[in-house]
């Protein structure tokens, strides 16, 4: 479904991504793990068009994304839950969700999808008229996820969904990620919580200072000596 080849991204003189290639198959959960500054978020931003790649190709179902203007990518079925949630703090929960459906025309579909999001995240339903800025961190994460789901994506990119959340919430979020995947949405997950990410991933890649150094199934990498040392605490 998503195929990244020889992707290079520079910020001025600094090369953040030094030519990486990876693939996400239809229906999978794929995770990129790596330390701070490895280039995980940069990779996500390049895929969803928030920054321009200098070289390489990003193919979504056979279409070259590097040539598509950023705002058109979501309409092609690729949504991103950005790191740090980035909800629209001054708009209500429901307005945030409806902005997710910005490109969709069918009102009936939108209403159905809204109901579905409220079922997945009942707390958003309870707070639908509250400004998003008044939500807790966990609720904002749910809102960011719900908002991305409102675009009705084929593939969902999630950047550090567990960041800053309590262990209980982290479990809940990971459970929901699996549920979303089981309902048929392909997922590309970036996480510092490597243990959790590898546990649910079909396929995984290790990113180190702009390069992919290891790949395998989630299980394989979870057992790998080097991964255990560097990312799983021994």
């Amino acid at each position, binding site marked *: 479904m998503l195929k990244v080849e020889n992707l290079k991204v520079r910020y001025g003189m600094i090369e953040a991504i030094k030519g990486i290639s990876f693939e996400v198959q239809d229906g999978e959960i794929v995770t990129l793990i790596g330390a701070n500054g490895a280039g995980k978020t940069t990779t996500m931003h390049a895929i*969803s068009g928030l920054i321009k790649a200098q070289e390489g190709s990003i193919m979504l179902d056979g279409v070259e994304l590097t040539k598509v203007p950023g705002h058109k990518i979501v309409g092609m079925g690729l949504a991103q839950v950005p790191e740090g949630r980035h*909800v629209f703090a001054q708009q209500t929960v429901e307005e945030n969700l409806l902005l997710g459906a910005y490109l969709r025309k069918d009102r009936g579909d939108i209403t159905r999808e809204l109901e579905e999001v409220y079922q997945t995240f009942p707390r958003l339903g309870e707070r639908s008229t509250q400004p998003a800025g008044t939500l807790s961190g966990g609720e904002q994460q749910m809102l960011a996820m719900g908002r991305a789901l409102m675009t009705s994506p084929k593939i969902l990119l999630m950047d550090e969904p567990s960041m800053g959340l309590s262990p209980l919430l982290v479990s809940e979020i990971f459970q929901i990620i699996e549920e979303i995947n089981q309902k048929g949405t392909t997922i590309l997950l970036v996480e510092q919580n490597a243990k959790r990410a590898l546990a649910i991933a079909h396929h995984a890649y290790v990113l180190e200072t702009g390069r992919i150094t290891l790949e395998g199934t989630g299980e394989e990498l979870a057992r790998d000596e080097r991964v255990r040392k560097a990312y799983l605490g021994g």
Partner: protein
Amino acid sequence: MRFLSYLMSGLGLGSVYAIIALGYTMVYGIAKMLNFAHGDIIMIGAYVSFFALTRFGLPVLAAVPAAMAVCTVLGVLIERMAYKPLRQATSLSVLITAIGVSYFLQNAAQILWSSSTKVFPAVISNGALQLGELSISYLTLVTILTCVVVMVCLTLFINHTKTGSAMRACAEDKGAAMLMGINVNRIISLTFAIGSALAAIAAILLCASYPQVFPTLGSMPGIKAFTAAVFGGIGSIPGAFVGGLLLGIIEILSRAYISTQLSDAIVFGVLVVVLLIKPTGILGRKLSEKV
């Protein structure tokens, strides 16, 4: 009674400031830039309506949309040609460019229409509404009414339409807005279009009370309205409204009771005091960056 009638003319002048201030505040809110050429859009609007009324003999109700159309196109073109290439540049570069655009428009007007002052025809009848002892000129009434209608329409549009919600989204977080599929460039264009159309309305109201058209006519109202926008809290639409009205009232009252010469100094002095006490303006939001 005299105080009340000063208050009414203050509200009238303030209404014009408020309409201009909306342009500053919306562009600042969404494009995060101070469009110092906004005052000169007013000047262009004044010339367009002047020619529409005199040379083409159009009625006022046709001159208004004509001026609005020209200003809208001009505002969008300026954004596209002068500001859009600087989207990634520092705010100082954009500010200097805006000042450059302002001088460009003033000098273009001087070349095209000479620097001599043209007399704007009377567009609103001279009469006044008598309420007991208080008399309010029709012009003041029309001006205040226009401002209220503009405010109500704009507020409804921003708060209750999908495009309005997209505009608010862009004001808060352009990256996240793009991830929703919002074409941020188009929203910025739209903002300039609305601001410039409002500048054209302001131009006609302004020329109806001060019937002189000249190339630098937009400078002073532009700066005053900018002050009003900052006064009310730049980026806030109700702030522009409140700031504009207050500024108009302060200006007229200081002219009436203190000194005509000092009125501008007093107006700007009030701004300094407000900013010392509340740096974000009366209705401005606290600037907080969440990490």
